[in-house]
């Protein structure tokens, strides 16, 4: 396309052929006020604010609609232009409410910024009271304050032109034009796909997000995509959901593997905080993201990701990793790819940490874990199993340039009153390990598990599966507040595990060193405060329950020795800086040993951070990012889909069709980030004009 030279306000600037005068001016750093114009939408010239004068013709035109011509001379602020603009703005203001202070868009409102820029504060025209502002009502995702609408039409256009949906319409009633929907139906009953594009382009507070859907702080491209933002590893979830929907499983798997080691294992057992934050959960139910991931990895026929793996040349540096769990192996994998020689020391006979010794096999088959460990090891990591490191110093003496401590949190944590040892009481972490090793003692007829998280259900369901007659879970949380996944609770219940909610153990009655029974009380509330656990006990609720075995599933903690040379925090975790380095130079830490117990995906993310920190320490650039699937431009046009708002979740995929139907439900929050931001008059862009010399 050829370049066009034109003069605006005395500045000689260059524009592309086919560009509007407005866009050419904005690109060149000359601000012309505008409101209905948006860089992603076709201009309609209805707000009249972008009026300019073509010098020599006495003609006032809308600069958004006028194409540049070579030799054009434009005046953006002649008196007649200013007069026209002022009248246009006052017309808009005649019906706009003045109570800006109760509007959440305050200080982020394009109209407010324009008032400031144009020096107009009020309309001299008669105030117009709109008649139809109450027709459109808010729903669970979109807040409508239509009395703030200035009918710029951007929302209608973005919905129609960009998204190909057309849920929003320009309606007429009582002699008044207003923005609405077809037949004034609520959005849930229209073709709306809740992509948020209308919210994004609304210049005022008329259409907004319901507060709380997105986090208040953080980079916009992250916060607007809650699943990706909440995932500790920031996996590009919307993209792989879209690829699964297109049946491109290998590509989806590649996207997943950009951030996740152990993707299939995570497909089975991930704590999926992504689903909890899913925007669709406010509408009906979240997308089955974990199941989608599992389906993609399982159906990855070509393993195309392998072709794109980034590997650096040998650095000649050596790294020792203590602990072969998710955090340690993840760090080892990326460090090996960065060209470092990595040796992993794992004290157990098998690597995998909690994946191998914590999570029961009925939830996660060992073969899945082993296969995934092997994929990582193929990068040339040396794994020593059954090998416990006693001294960090020795490792350093053995020419390791850096050491990563990723030994996990393998010690049970009990309420302070119950720390003594009974021969029929166990910590959950030991119980799970022994169950896997096949070294569990005789459990008796009645097993009580204290705790309400996934680990508690791992213990309870394992005991039940091993034939224990009566298994009960005692937990302080009410049913709906339990920490465990809903499916774990459901399965436990189905398998006959008795769940006692809102109960606390008040006393353990023993005979010698054997627990004989427990006294439980009902509680109406509890909280962990500075003073410790505080709870409201319901009077007279105490009762005694006999038990043959008592399992504490009340948490885990690291048991890293205090004399190892690295500083520990009060709770026994290792203190680290932002680079994941401990108090000892060259010694890093990651995973549960740093933050207590969290989740496998958290360990993966932590392992990635450690790899970055260690690589930087060893003189590398610290970058482990890789694009295993080459990005394509997103298609912004998502079109319509029947009953989209009502589509129900499919949690378990039997066939391809299930995967397609479920992924279709995605609101595609990431597309909103592709929409351009309108620049305010204060933008640095408008501080200097990009002039061309003749």
């Amino acid at each position: 396309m050829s370049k066009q030279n034109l003069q605006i306000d005395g500045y000689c600037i260059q524009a592309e052929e086919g560009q509007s005068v407005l866009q050419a001016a904005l690109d060149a750093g000359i601000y012309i006020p505008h409101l209905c114009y948006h860089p992603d939408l076709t201009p309609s010239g209805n707000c009249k604010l972008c009026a300019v004068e073509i010098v020599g013709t006495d003609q006032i035109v809308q600069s958004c609609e006028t194409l540049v011509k070579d030799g054009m001379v434009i005046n953006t602020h002649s008196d007649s232009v200013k007069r026209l603009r002022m009248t246009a703005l006052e017309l808009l203001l005649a019906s706009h409410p003045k109570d800006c202070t109760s509007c959440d868009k305050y200080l982020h409102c394009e109209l407010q910024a324009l008032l400031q820029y144009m020096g107009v504060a009020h309309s001299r025209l008669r105030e117009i009271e709109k008649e139809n502002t109450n027709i459109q009502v808010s729903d669970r995702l979109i807040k409508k304050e239509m009395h703030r609408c200035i009918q710029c039409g951007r929302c209608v256009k973005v919905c129609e032109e960009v998204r190909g949906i057309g849920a929003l319409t320009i309606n007429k009633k009582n002699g008044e034009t207003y923005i609405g929907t077809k037949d004034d139906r609520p959005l849930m009953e229209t073709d709306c796909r809740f992509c948020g594009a209308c919210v994004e382009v609304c210049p005022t507070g008329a259409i907004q997000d319901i507060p709380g859907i997105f986090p208040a702080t953080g980079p916009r491209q992250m916060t607007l995509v809650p699943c990706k933002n909440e995932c500790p590893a920031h996996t590009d979830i919307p993209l792989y959901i879209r690829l699964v929907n297109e049946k491109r499983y290998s590509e989806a798997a590649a996207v997943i593997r950009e951030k996740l080691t152990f993707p299939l294992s995570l497909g089975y057992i991930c704590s999926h905080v992504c689903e909890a934050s899913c925007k669709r959960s406010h509408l009906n139910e979240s997308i089955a993201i974990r199941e989608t991931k599992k389906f993609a990895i399982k159906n990855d026929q070509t393993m195309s990701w392998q072709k794109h793996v980034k590997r650096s040349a040998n650095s000649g540096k050596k790294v020792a990793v203590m602990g072969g769990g998710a955090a340690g192996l993840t760090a080892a994998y990326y460090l090996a790819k960065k060209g470092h020689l990595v040796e992993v020391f794992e004290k157990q006979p098998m690597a995998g940490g909690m994946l191998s010794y914590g999570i029961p096999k009925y939830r996660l088959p060992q073969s899945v874990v082993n296969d995934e460990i092997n994929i990582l090891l193929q990068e040339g990591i040396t794994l020593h199993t059954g090998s416990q490191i006693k001294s960090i110093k020795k490792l350093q003496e053995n020419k390791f340039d850096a050491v990563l401590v990723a030994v996990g949190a393998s010690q049970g944590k009990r309420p302070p009153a119950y720390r003594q040892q009974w021969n029929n009481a166990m910590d959950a972490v030991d119980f799970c390990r022994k169950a896997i090793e096949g070294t569990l003692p005789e459990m008796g007829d009645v097993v009580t598990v204290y705790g309400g998280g996934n680990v508690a259900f791992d213990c309870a369901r394992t005991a039940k599966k091993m034939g224990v007659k009566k298994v009960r879970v005692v937990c302080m949380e009410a049913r709906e507040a339990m920490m465990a996944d809903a499916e774990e609770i459901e399965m436990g219940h189905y398998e006959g595990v008795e769940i006692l909610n809102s109960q606390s153990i008040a006393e353990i009655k023993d005979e010698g060193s054997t627990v004989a029974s427990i006294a439980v009380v009902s509680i109406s509330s509890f909280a962990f405060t500075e003073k410790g656990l505080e709870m409201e006990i319901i009077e007279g609720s105490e009762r005694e329950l006999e038990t043959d075995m008592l399992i504490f599933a009340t948490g885990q903690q690291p048991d890293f020795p205090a004399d190892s040379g690295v500083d520990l925090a009060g709770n026994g975790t290792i203190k680290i800086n932002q680079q994941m380095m401990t108090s000892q130079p060259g010694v890093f830490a990651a995973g549960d040993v740093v933050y207590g117990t969290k989740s496998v995906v958290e360990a993966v993310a932590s392992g990635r951070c450690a790899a970055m920190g260690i690589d930087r320490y060893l003189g590398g650039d610290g970058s482990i990012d890789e694009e295993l699937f080459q990005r394509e431009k997103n298609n912004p046009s998502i079109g319509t889909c029947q009953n989209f708002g009502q589509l129900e979740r499919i949690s378990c995929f039997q066939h391809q069709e299930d995967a397609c139907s479920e992924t279709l439900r995605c609101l595609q929050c990431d597309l909103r980030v592709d929409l351009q931001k309108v620049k305010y008059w204060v933008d640095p862009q408008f501080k200097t004009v990009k002039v061309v010399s003749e």
Partner: protein
Amino acid sequence: MSNVLEADVIIIGGGASGITAAVAAAEKDASVILLEKGSTTGGAANMGMGIFAVESKYQKAQLVDFTKEDAFNLLMNYTHWRVDARLVRKYIEQSSDTIDWIETMGVEFLGAYKYFEKSTQTWHVVKTQGSNAPAERAASNMFRALTERAEELGVEIMYNTKATQILKDDDGFVTGVELVGEDGVTKTAECNAVIVATGGFGDNPKMIREMLGYEWGSDLHSFRIPGVQGEGLNMLWEVGAGKTEPTMELTFTTPGVTDVFKTISETMRQPNLMVNLDGHRFINEEIMNNTVYTGNAISLQREKAAFTIIDDSILETYRKTGLDYVTVHHNVKTVEKWDKELESYLKGEGIEAGGLSELHNKDQKHQRHVFAVDSLDELCEVTGIHLENLQQTIEDYNKGCAESDDMFFKKHKYMKPLKGGKYYVARHYPAGYGSLGGVKTNDNMEVLDAKGIKIPGLYASGTDACNIYGDSYCFFLPGNTMSFAVNSGRIAGYSAVDFMDSDEFN
């Protein structure tokens, strides 16, 4: 933008005070970075109309008989000398010069105005393009001019940027600010002086509860200008700044009615019978146009609630003569929209409308605050007012209308009897424009610690440091909050540069 952030002065908040401080410091050749959370400058003051000043050229031209000495004495007597007299004196002295100073930036003022009958004529309302009438939001014009002046002087304004922490060195000198930029990334900016001007905590219900004792949304319905969340005060206190007792710039409101149904609201804010839940009068309704006094009086009543009652006969008078009180900013003079607004309100329209934010729960949103009833029995039933007492009060009040108001000495012209027929009643609660004060400073706007010793390099200005009204905002000197923000910002900007030029700094 470079990754190294460094300036002589960093200003937190780009509202009235912050942007003024930026211009002041930059005019004295300091390099300045201004951190603003929003996408534009001006903050809460964009909603305002003008600033207080005394002995300005406008006042001289308008023959306003009110001197700096008068203003000083008025404010000091009003506050019983419980506020910093040096700061008050300096502020009043500078105020007229500030008008001239701002005019050099291309701002025009319409003149000096009163806010209500009994107030002084100190309010310098900004002129808007093409209009010679005072208008809401007019002040936003002034902040455009200040912003452009700041840019001209090389001030770097970082929009959508939040300060998170003030940094000090081991000797207690301020060294920088930790911030989160537009990209969401945390950075550190180094500087020699920090000016905090974040506008108080009007949008922070938790701080309102803890520091002022109101439960926002039930017994307080103040403006919550989005973003004014007290971060500045918290940052200041964290680095050892001394606390003062903040107050609320009080007014009163009928939730869901004021600012939405303006005719109803204005009609129910006329000086007619006002009672509390016990059915007793507690105020000379004549002072209702002093919204601060009225807010104070309502705050003292049971459940912090009060009711104004009118009837068809009073409405009829207003239909004929117009309203007794007309406010400058709402400018509702007649009741011509009464019937339409009342019908719409009683039908439940406008519930989602402005003034009732997300923090109001469903019950609160749907709670009625204006009623049209056929008898006093019904009135008391819907409002919970004590019936027998109210009957007695109305009997006494009507007698007062015929003779004189022996109870509170209200002027006869405002004594309109309640004759029955249909009654209209509005429930009022305390409201406010936001918090005032919270951090200790001296008259250079230097922040002091609890012992009164200054923290070198640390300044606070505007609403965060606005401790000059004592327990209640002084409504007699209109334009005061914004003017204090502007003038204290100006003082802070100059002081920060003086500090860097001083021996103490080296």
